[in-house]
């Protein structure tokens, strides 16, 4: 990597990331409220899902898995959609915060997707008699998980992290095709996984006594995403600053050596 290139990106870093201070100040003020909402949501949602919901007449107590499985699956897709939007903003307007938000989202999305896959598997064994089947929904969500992992790997694969983030964001935009595939997989390849019962054109078909705790858990996971995102964005920001500080220090050492000799 030639030095002028590095110099240019370092200077750009300083100016491009000067503005986000205001965003982080605001985010830090909101964060305690978000964590409070997460705790409140869990305090209401967990007892509701684990105790007060009646066992399903067909599925018995395994139906309680739904209250973590479905919100995790919703978030697997929601986080990807947010990541794709952030990537788009980052690529078109070169907005540094959007770039950071996209990269910071990927591990959160991967975690939610992993949760959806594992809980689905643990639900599938007693109800369908198998932990795994190459059914359309399961396969497409597994692909989403790999897309997240590839995004994380790509964003770290380049010597210049700014370039890595840019490539990862382009990849995120291409990968957005997986979202409609997941959504309609239960209709196109109707093999094992049930079809939508909450977000339907004709309204939810799920029993209201089960819908409410599900929505509370869904909202809790949603807020949890934003709370985690703030922590991860701080961390990504710190990584950017760390790199530019190191480069600046290195350059100064080089110039002082040149002066000394």
């Amino acid at each position, binding site marked *: 990597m030639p030095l002028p290139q590095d110099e240019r990106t370092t200077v750009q870093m*300083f100016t491009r990331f000067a503005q986000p201070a205001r965003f982080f100040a605001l985010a830090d003020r909101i964060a305690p409220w978000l964590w409070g909402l997460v705790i409140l949501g869990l305090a209401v949602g967990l007892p509701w899902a684990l105790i007060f919901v009646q066992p399903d007449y067909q599925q018995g*107590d*395994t139906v*309680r898995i739904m209250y973590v499985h479905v919100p995790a699956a919703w978030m697997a897709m929601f986080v990807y959609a947010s990541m794709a939007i952030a990537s788009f903003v980052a690529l078109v307007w070169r907005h540094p915060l959007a770039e950071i938000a996209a990269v910071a989202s990927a591990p959160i999305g991967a975690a939610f997707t992993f949760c959806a896959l*594992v809980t689905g598997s*643990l639900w599938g064994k*007693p109800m369908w008699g198998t932990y795994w089947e190459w059914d359309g929904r399961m396969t497409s969500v597994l692909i989403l998980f790999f897309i997240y992992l590839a995004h994380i790997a790509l964003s770290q694969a380049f010597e210049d992290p700014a370039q890595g983030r840019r490539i990862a964001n382009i990849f995120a935009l291409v990968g957005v095709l997986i979202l409609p595939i997941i959504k309609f997989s239960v209709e196109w390849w109707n093999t094992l996984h049930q079809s939508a019962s909450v977000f339907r054109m004709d309204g939810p078909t799920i029993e209201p006594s089960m819908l409410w705790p599900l929505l509370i858990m869904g909202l809790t996971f949603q807020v949890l995403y934003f709370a985690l995102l703030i922590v991860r964005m701080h961390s990504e920001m710190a990584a950017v*600053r760390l790199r530019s*500080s190191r480069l600046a220090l290195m350059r100064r050492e080089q110039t002082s050596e040149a002066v000394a000799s």
Partner: protein
Amino acid sequence: MADFFAMGGYAAYVWGSYLVVALVLGGLLVWSRQQLKSRRAALARLKAQEDRRTEIAGGEPEQTNSTGTPQD
């Protein structure tokens, strides 16, 4: 109470699911905070190092130092 833990015979599946979710999401939070902490510590070390250098140099204001390093 025993009924609650037994989950109608599906204890391993139901509690297993909740445990995995708690470990994965809780783990993500702990890991992210740890990462942020260590990166901030490294930044602080770097800054202290720079401050020492400028002190040794007799407090001479260096050209590169006035570019407005973002402060945390």
